[in-house]
Protein backbone atom coordinates (compact mmCIF):
# COMPACT_ATOMS: atom_id res chain seq x y z
CA UNK A 1 0.00 0.00 0.00
CA UNK A 2 1.43 3.39 -0.95
CA UNK A 3 1.57 6.22 1.58
CA UNK A 4 -1.16 8.06 -0.29
CA UNK A 5 -3.57 5.13 -0.16
CA UNK A 6 -2.69 4.58 3.47
CA UNK A 7 -3.54 8.21 4.22
CA UNK A 8 -6.78 8.43 2.26
CA UNK A 9 -8.31 5.13 3.35
CA UNK A 10 -9.05 6.62 6.76
CA UNK A 11 -10.93 9.50 5.24
CA UNK A 12 -13.24 7.71 2.81
CA UNK A 13 -12.94 3.94 2.32
CA UNK A 14 -12.53 2.99 5.98
CA UNK A 15 -13.92 6.11 7.62
CA UNK A 16 -14.01 5.16 11.30
CA UNK A 17 -17.35 6.81 12.01
CA UNK A 18 -19.47 6.38 8.89
CA UNK A 19 -18.15 3.03 7.67
CA UNK A 20 -17.01 1.15 10.78
CA UNK A 21 -19.38 2.90 13.26
CA UNK A 22 -16.63 3.35 15.84
CA UNK A 23 -16.55 6.13 18.39
CA UNK A 24 -20.27 6.86 18.31
CA UNK A 25 -20.78 8.28 21.80
CA UNK A 26 -18.67 11.45 21.54
CA UNK A 27 -19.74 11.99 17.95
CA UNK A 28 -23.37 12.26 19.06
CA UNK A 29 -22.71 14.23 22.23
CA UNK A 30 -20.24 16.94 21.23
CA UNK A 31 -21.70 17.84 17.84
CA UNK A 32 -24.00 20.57 19.18
CA UNK A 33 -21.67 23.21 17.74
CA UNK A 34 -18.92 23.21 15.15
CA UNK A 35 -16.48 24.56 17.74
CA UNK A 36 -16.98 21.56 20.02
CA UNK A 37 -16.50 19.19 17.09
CA UNK A 38 -13.24 20.94 16.15
CA UNK A 39 -12.05 20.74 19.75
CA UNK A 40 -12.86 17.04 19.93
CA UNK A 41 -11.05 16.48 16.63
CA UNK A 42 -7.92 18.15 18.01
CA UNK A 43 -8.01 15.91 21.08
CA UNK A 44 -8.56 12.71 19.10
CA UNK A 45 -5.91 13.73 16.54
CA UNK A 46 -3.25 14.24 19.20
CA UNK A 47 -4.05 11.01 21.05
CA UNK A 48 -4.50 8.80 17.98
CA UNK A 49 -1.35 9.92 16.13
CA UNK A 50 0.90 9.71 19.17
CA UNK A 51 -0.57 6.43 20.46
CA UNK A 52 -0.13 4.85 17.01
CA UNK A 53 3.47 6.11 16.95
CA UNK A 54 4.38 4.95 20.47
CA UNK A 55 2.69 1.57 20.16
CA UNK A 56 4.28 0.79 16.81
CA UNK A 57 7.65 1.80 18.28
CA UNK A 58 7.13 -0.65 21.13
CA UNK A 59 5.87 -3.45 18.90
CA UNK A 60 8.52 -3.07 16.18
CA UNK A 61 11.25 -3.75 18.73
CA UNK A 62 11.44 -7.55 18.74
CA UNK A 63 12.58 -8.03 22.35
CA UNK A 64 10.08 -5.56 23.73
CA UNK A 65 7.25 -6.96 21.61
CA UNK A 66 7.79 -10.46 22.96
CA UNK A 67 7.69 -9.10 26.50
CA UNK A 68 4.57 -7.02 25.91
CA UNK A 69 2.52 -9.42 23.80
CA UNK A 70 0.67 -11.33 26.58
CA UNK A 71 -0.37 -8.08 28.31
CA UNK A 72 -0.63 -5.88 25.26
CA UNK A 73 -4.15 -4.51 25.82
CA UNK A 74 -3.38 -3.09 29.30
CA UNK A 75 -0.15 -1.64 27.89
CA UNK A 76 -2.07 0.05 25.07
CA UNK A 77 -4.61 1.40 27.55
CA UNK A 78 -1.91 2.90 29.77
CA UNK A 79 -0.25 4.60 26.78
CA UNK A 80 -3.60 5.98 25.60
CA UNK A 81 -4.70 7.08 29.07
CA UNK A 82 -1.44 8.96 29.58
CA UNK A 83 -1.92 10.85 26.32
CA UNK A 84 -5.53 11.61 27.22
CA UNK A 85 -4.43 13.00 30.57
CA UNK A 86 -2.02 15.32 28.74
CA UNK A 87 -4.86 16.53 26.50
CA UNK A 88 -7.07 17.04 29.55
CA UNK A 89 -4.51 19.14 31.41
CA UNK A 90 -3.51 21.24 28.39
CA UNK A 91 -7.14 21.95 27.49
CA UNK A 92 -8.01 22.83 31.08
CA UNK A 93 -5.12 25.31 31.18
CA UNK A 94 -5.36 26.95 27.75
CA UNK A 95 -8.89 26.36 26.46
CA UNK A 96 -11.04 26.34 29.62
CA UNK A 97 -14.36 27.10 27.88
CA UNK A 98 -13.88 24.20 25.46
CA UNK A 99 -12.79 21.98 28.37
CA UNK A 100 -16.05 22.60 30.20
CA UNK A 101 -18.32 22.26 27.18
CA UNK A 102 -16.74 18.91 26.20
CA UNK A 103 -16.88 17.82 29.85
CA UNK A 104 -16.77 14.11 30.52
CA UNK A 105 -16.07 13.31 26.88
CA UNK A 106 -12.40 14.32 27.12
CA UNK A 107 -11.45 11.58 29.62
CA UNK A 108 -13.71 9.25 27.64
CA UNK A 109 -11.34 9.46 24.65
CA UNK A 110 -9.60 6.58 26.48
CA UNK A 111 -12.45 4.19 25.74
CA UNK A 112 -12.97 5.49 22.20
CA UNK A 113 -12.88 2.28 20.18
CA UNK A 114 -11.15 3.99 17.23
CA UNK A 115 -7.93 4.49 19.15
CA UNK A 116 -7.66 1.03 20.67
CA UNK A 117 -8.88 -0.42 17.37
CA UNK A 118 -6.12 1.25 15.32
CA UNK A 119 -3.52 0.25 17.92
CA UNK A 120 -4.53 -3.39 17.70
CA UNK A 121 -5.31 -3.59 13.98
CA UNK A 122 -2.63 -1.36 12.47
CA UNK A 123 0.05 0.09 14.74
CA UNK A 124 1.02 -3.23 16.31
CA UNK A 125 1.88 -4.74 12.91
CA UNK A 126 3.33 -1.79 10.99
CA UNK A 127 6.32 0.55 10.99
CA UNK A 128 6.17 3.79 13.03
CA UNK A 129 6.07 6.07 9.96
CA UNK A 130 3.20 4.13 8.36
CA UNK A 131 1.36 4.12 11.67
CA UNK A 132 1.63 7.88 11.98
CA UNK A 133 0.26 8.31 8.44
CA UNK A 134 -2.57 5.92 9.27
CA UNK A 135 -3.27 7.81 12.49
CA UNK A 136 -3.38 11.19 10.72
CA UNK A 137 -5.76 9.82 8.07
CA UNK A 138 -8.06 8.14 10.57
CA UNK A 139 -8.16 11.17 12.88
CA UNK A 140 -8.92 13.47 9.94
CA UNK A 141 -11.62 11.09 8.70
CA UNK A 142 -13.21 11.04 12.13
CA UNK A 143 -12.85 14.80 12.50
CA UNK A 144 -14.42 15.58 9.12
CA UNK A 145 -17.28 13.21 9.92
CA UNK A 146 -18.14 14.84 13.26
CA UNK A 147 -17.70 18.31 11.74
CA UNK A 148 -20.20 17.38 9.02
CA UNK A 149 -22.74 16.27 11.65
CA UNK A 150 -22.16 19.39 13.74
CA UNK A 151 -22.52 21.72 10.74
CA UNK A 152 -25.98 20.29 10.04
CA UNK A 153 -26.99 20.35 13.70
CA UNK A 154 -25.78 23.84 14.53
CA UNK A 155 -27.09 25.42 11.33
CA UNK A 156 -30.54 23.83 11.60
CA UNK A 157 -30.75 24.28 15.38
CA UNK A 158 -29.38 27.79 15.89
CA UNK A 159 -28.76 29.23 12.44
CA UNK A 160 -25.10 29.93 13.22
CA UNK A 161 -21.75 28.22 12.68
CA UNK A 162 -19.27 28.80 15.51
CA UNK A 163 -15.82 28.07 14.15
CA UNK A 164 -13.63 29.10 17.07
CA UNK A 165 -14.34 31.39 20.03
CA UNK A 166 -15.79 34.67 18.74
CA UNK A 167 -15.36 33.74 15.09
CA UNK A 168 -18.92 32.89 14.20
CA UNK A 169 -20.68 32.73 10.86
CA UNK A 170 -24.23 34.00 11.20
CA UNK A 171 -26.64 32.41 8.77
CA UNK A 172 -29.91 33.34 10.48
CA UNK A 173 -30.83 35.50 7.47
CA UNK A 174 -31.68 32.29 5.61
CA UNK A 175 -34.29 31.51 8.25
CA UNK A 176 -35.50 35.14 8.15
CA UNK A 177 -35.82 34.89 4.39
CA UNK A 178 -37.89 31.72 4.66
CA UNK A 179 -39.85 33.30 7.55
CA UNK A 180 -39.29 30.35 9.89
CA UNK A 181 -37.52 29.89 13.21
CA UNK A 182 -34.41 27.70 13.59
CA UNK A 183 -35.45 24.18 14.63
CA UNK A 184 -34.22 24.02 18.24
CA UNK A 185 -34.80 20.26 18.28
CA UNK A 186 -31.58 19.76 16.33
CA UNK A 187 -29.27 20.93 19.10
CA UNK A 188 -31.07 18.65 21.57
CA UNK A 189 -30.29 14.91 21.87
CA UNK A 190 -33.10 14.11 19.43
CA UNK A 191 -31.30 15.97 16.67
CA UNK A 192 -28.11 14.01 17.23
CA UNK A 193 -29.74 10.65 16.57
CA UNK A 194 -31.83 11.97 13.70
CA UNK A 195 -29.00 13.78 11.91
CA UNK A 196 -26.61 10.87 12.28
CA UNK A 197 -29.21 8.36 11.09
CA UNK A 198 -30.11 10.42 8.03
CA UNK A 199 -26.48 11.11 7.07
CA UNK A 200 -25.70 7.41 7.44
CA UNK A 201 -28.66 6.51 5.22
CA UNK A 202 -27.57 9.04 2.60
CA UNK A 203 -24.05 7.62 2.58
CA UNK A 204 -25.36 4.06 2.26
CA UNK A 205 -27.55 5.14 -0.65
CA UNK A 206 -24.62 6.82 -2.42
CA UNK A 207 -22.39 3.79 -1.82
CA UNK A 208 -25.06 1.39 -3.14
CA UNK A 209 -25.55 3.55 -6.22
CA UNK A 210 -21.81 3.57 -6.85
CA UNK A 211 -21.61 -0.21 -6.46
CA UNK A 212 -24.48 -0.74 -8.91
CA UNK A 213 -22.78 1.47 -11.47
CA UNK A 214 -19.53 -0.45 -11.11
CA UNK A 215 -21.36 -3.75 -11.48
CA UNK A 216 -23.07 -2.49 -14.64
CA UNK A 217 -19.76 -1.36 -16.10
CA UNK A 218 -18.24 -4.77 -15.46
CA UNK A 219 -21.29 -6.47 -17.00
CA UNK A 220 -21.12 -4.24 -20.10
CA UNK A 221 -17.43 -4.78 -20.60
CA UNK A 222 -17.74 -8.52 -20.14
Amino acid at each position, binding site marked *: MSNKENFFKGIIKENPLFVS*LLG*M*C*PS*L*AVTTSLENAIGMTLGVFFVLVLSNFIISLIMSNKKLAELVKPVR*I*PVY*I*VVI*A*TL*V*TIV*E*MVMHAYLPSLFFSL*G*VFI*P*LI*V*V*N*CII*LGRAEAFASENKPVDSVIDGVGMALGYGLAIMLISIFREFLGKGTLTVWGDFQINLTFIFDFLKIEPIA*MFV*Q*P*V*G*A*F*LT*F*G*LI*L*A*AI*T*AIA*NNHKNKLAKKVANNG
Partner: protein
Amino acid sequence: MDNLIMLAFSAFIIENIILTQFLGICPFLGVSTKRSSALGMGMAVIFVMLISSSVTWLLYKYVLEAFSIEYMRTIVFILVIASLVQMVETFLKKVSPPLYKALGIYLPLITTNCAVLGVAILNISKEHNFLEMLVYTTFIGLGFLFVMYIFSMLREKLDFAPVPKAFKGAPIALVIAAILAIIFSRFGGII
Protein backbone atom coordinates in the same frame (compact mmCIF):
# COMPACT_ATOMS: atom_id res chain seq x y z
CA MET B 1 -34.77 11.48 51.51
CA ASP B 2 -36.59 13.73 49.04
CA ASN B 3 -33.24 14.55 47.55
CA LEU B 4 -32.42 10.92 46.97
CA ILE B 5 -35.78 10.21 45.31
CA MET B 6 -35.28 13.21 43.06
CA LEU B 7 -31.78 12.04 42.21
CA ALA B 8 -33.00 8.52 41.47
CA PHE B 9 -35.82 9.73 39.24
CA SER B 10 -33.69 12.13 37.26
CA ALA B 11 -30.94 9.52 36.84
CA PHE B 12 -33.49 6.97 35.66
CA ILE B 13 -35.47 9.01 33.15
CA ILE B 14 -34.55 12.67 32.78
CA GLU B 15 -30.80 12.26 32.52
CA ASN B 16 -31.17 8.90 30.85
CA ILE B 17 -27.69 7.67 30.13
CA ILE B 18 -28.32 6.57 26.56
CA LEU B 19 -30.86 9.03 25.26
CA THR B 20 -29.65 12.27 26.81
CA GLN B 21 -26.05 11.68 27.85
CA PHE B 22 -25.00 9.52 24.88
CA LEU B 23 -22.96 7.05 26.91
CA GLY B 24 -22.96 3.39 25.98
CA ILE B 25 -24.20 3.88 22.43
CA CYS B 26 -22.10 0.98 21.11
CA PRO B 27 -23.89 -1.76 23.11
CA PHE B 28 -27.16 0.14 22.58
CA LEU B 29 -26.88 -0.42 18.82
CA GLY B 30 -24.79 -3.58 18.89
CA VAL B 31 -26.51 -5.97 21.30
CA SER B 32 -30.09 -4.75 21.11
CA THR B 33 -31.27 -6.99 18.29
CA LYS B 34 -32.79 -9.55 20.67
CA ARG B 35 -34.67 -9.09 23.94
CA SER B 36 -32.67 -11.70 25.81
CA SER B 37 -29.31 -10.21 24.90
CA ALA B 38 -30.51 -6.70 25.77
CA LEU B 39 -31.53 -7.95 29.22
CA GLY B 40 -28.24 -9.78 29.74
CA MET B 41 -26.18 -6.79 28.70
CA GLY B 42 -28.24 -4.45 30.89
CA MET B 43 -27.80 -6.68 33.95
CA ALA B 44 -24.07 -7.04 33.35
CA VAL B 45 -23.72 -3.26 33.01
CA ILE B 46 -25.59 -2.56 36.26
CA PHE B 47 -23.47 -5.15 38.06
CA VAL B 48 -20.12 -3.88 36.81
CA MET B 49 -21.11 -0.23 37.11
CA LEU B 50 -22.03 -0.58 40.79
CA ILE B 51 -18.83 -2.39 41.70
CA SER B 52 -16.53 -0.18 39.66
CA SER B 53 -18.16 3.10 40.74
CA SER B 54 -17.89 2.11 44.42
CA VAL B 55 -14.24 1.12 44.08
CA THR B 56 -13.23 4.15 42.04
CA TRP B 57 -15.12 6.49 44.38
CA LEU B 58 -13.31 5.10 47.43
CA LEU B 59 -9.98 5.17 45.61
CA TYR B 60 -10.49 8.76 44.54
CA LYS B 61 -11.52 9.99 47.99
CA TYR B 62 -8.98 8.10 50.07
CA VAL B 63 -5.99 7.71 47.78
CA LEU B 64 -5.97 10.23 44.95
CA GLU B 65 -7.35 13.14 46.96
CA ALA B 66 -5.36 12.28 50.07
CA PHE B 67 -2.11 12.43 48.11
CA SER B 68 -3.44 15.25 45.88
CA ILE B 69 -2.75 13.40 42.65
CA GLU B 70 -6.22 13.93 41.16
CA TYR B 71 -4.77 14.27 37.67
CA MET B 72 -4.09 10.51 37.70
CA ARG B 73 -7.87 9.99 37.64
CA THR B 74 -8.27 8.82 34.06
CA ILE B 75 -5.37 6.34 34.13
CA VAL B 76 -6.29 4.89 37.53
CA PHE B 77 -9.99 4.56 36.73
CA ILE B 78 -9.58 2.79 33.42
CA LEU B 79 -7.03 0.36 34.84
CA VAL B 80 -9.23 -0.36 37.86
CA ILE B 81 -12.26 -0.96 35.65
CA ALA B 82 -10.39 -3.19 33.22
CA SER B 83 -8.94 -5.35 35.98
CA LEU B 84 -12.23 -5.40 37.90
CA VAL B 85 -14.09 -6.73 34.89
CA GLN B 86 -11.47 -9.44 34.53
CA MET B 87 -11.78 -10.31 38.23
CA VAL B 88 -15.56 -10.37 38.19
CA GLU B 89 -15.43 -12.71 35.22
CA THR B 90 -13.07 -15.17 36.93
CA PHE B 91 -14.99 -14.93 40.20
CA LEU B 92 -18.37 -15.57 38.59
CA LYS B 93 -17.01 -18.51 36.63
CA LYS B 94 -15.92 -20.16 39.88
CA VAL B 95 -18.73 -19.19 42.24
CA SER B 96 -21.89 -18.99 40.18
CA PRO B 97 -21.79 -20.81 36.85
CA PRO B 98 -25.44 -20.04 35.97
CA LEU B 99 -24.89 -16.31 36.49
CA TYR B 100 -21.68 -16.57 34.50
CA LYS B 101 -23.54 -18.23 31.68
CA ALA B 102 -26.08 -15.41 31.62
CA LEU B 103 -23.65 -12.48 31.88
CA GLY B 104 -20.32 -14.00 30.86
CA ILE B 105 -20.21 -13.15 27.19
CA TYR B 106 -21.11 -9.52 27.84
CA LEU B 107 -18.42 -8.92 30.44
CA PRO B 108 -15.40 -8.51 28.13
CA LEU B 109 -17.42 -6.08 26.00
CA ILE B 110 -17.98 -3.90 29.03
CA THR B 111 -14.32 -2.88 29.49
CA THR B 112 -14.55 -0.56 26.53
CA ASN B 113 -18.11 0.51 27.32
CA CYS B 114 -17.91 4.22 27.89
CA ALA B 115 -20.94 4.12 30.20
CA VAL B 116 -18.97 2.44 32.99
CA LEU B 117 -16.03 4.86 32.95
CA GLY B 118 -18.41 7.74 32.26
CA VAL B 119 -20.53 7.10 35.35
CA ALA B 120 -17.44 6.66 37.53
CA ILE B 121 -16.19 10.08 36.36
CA LEU B 122 -19.64 11.72 36.62
CA ASN B 123 -19.94 10.57 40.23
CA ILE B 124 -16.69 12.37 41.02
CA SER B 125 -17.40 15.53 39.04
CA LYS B 126 -20.91 15.86 40.51
CA GLU B 127 -19.38 15.54 44.01
CA HIS B 128 -21.78 12.85 45.17
CA ASN B 129 -21.32 11.38 48.66
CA PHE B 130 -21.20 7.60 49.02
CA LEU B 131 -24.95 7.08 49.41
CA GLU B 132 -25.81 9.44 46.55
CA MET B 133 -23.20 7.65 44.44
CA LEU B 134 -24.89 4.29 45.09
CA VAL B 135 -28.37 5.62 44.28
CA TYR B 136 -27.22 7.51 41.18
CA THR B 137 -25.28 4.55 39.79
CA THR B 138 -28.08 2.05 40.42
CA PHE B 139 -30.69 4.17 38.72
CA ILE B 140 -28.46 5.15 35.82
CA GLY B 141 -27.93 1.41 35.32
CA LEU B 142 -31.65 0.71 35.54
CA GLY B 143 -32.29 3.48 33.01
CA PHE B 144 -29.78 1.82 30.69
CA LEU B 145 -31.54 -1.55 31.08
CA PHE B 146 -34.98 0.02 30.58
CA VAL B 147 -34.10 1.80 27.34
CA MET B 148 -32.15 -1.19 26.02
CA TYR B 149 -35.15 -3.43 26.63
CA ILE B 150 -37.67 -1.10 24.97
CA PHE B 151 -35.33 -0.61 22.05
CA SER B 152 -34.78 -4.35 21.58
CA MET B 153 -38.53 -4.93 21.44
CA LEU B 154 -38.84 -2.26 18.75
CA ARG B 155 -35.99 -3.79 16.79
CA GLU B 156 -37.53 -7.27 16.93
CA LYS B 157 -40.63 -5.82 15.28
CA LEU B 158 -38.45 -4.00 12.78
CA ASP B 159 -37.25 -7.30 11.33
CA PHE B 160 -40.68 -7.72 9.76
CA ALA B 161 -41.10 -4.15 8.56
CA PRO B 162 -40.41 -3.08 4.97
CA VAL B 163 -37.47 -0.70 5.40
CA PRO B 164 -35.97 1.25 2.47
CA LYS B 165 -32.73 -0.32 1.36
CA ALA B 166 -30.50 2.59 2.37
CA PHE B 167 -31.99 2.70 5.86
CA LYS B 168 -31.39 -1.00 6.68
CA GLY B 169 -29.44 -1.65 9.87
CA ALA B 170 -27.90 1.23 11.79
CA PRO B 171 -29.63 4.23 10.10
CA ILE B 172 -33.18 3.11 10.91
CA ALA B 173 -32.10 2.15 14.44
CA LEU B 174 -30.80 5.69 14.93
CA VAL B 175 -34.01 7.22 13.63
CA ILE B 176 -36.00 5.08 16.07
CA ALA B 177 -33.64 6.16 18.85
CA ALA B 178 -34.41 9.76 17.89
CA ILE B 179 -38.14 9.13 18.34
CA LEU B 180 -37.48 7.53 21.74
CA ALA B 181 -35.34 10.54 22.65
CA ILE B 182 -38.24 12.89 21.84
CA ILE B 183 -40.40 10.98 24.31
CA PHE B 184 -37.76 10.99 27.01
CA SER B 185 -36.91 14.67 26.58
CA ARG B 186 -40.54 15.53 27.47
CA PHE B 187 -40.11 13.96 30.91
CA GLY B 188 -37.82 16.88 31.75
CA GLY B 189 -40.85 19.01 32.61
CA ILE B 190 -41.83 16.86 35.57
CA ILE B 191 -39.26 18.27 37.98
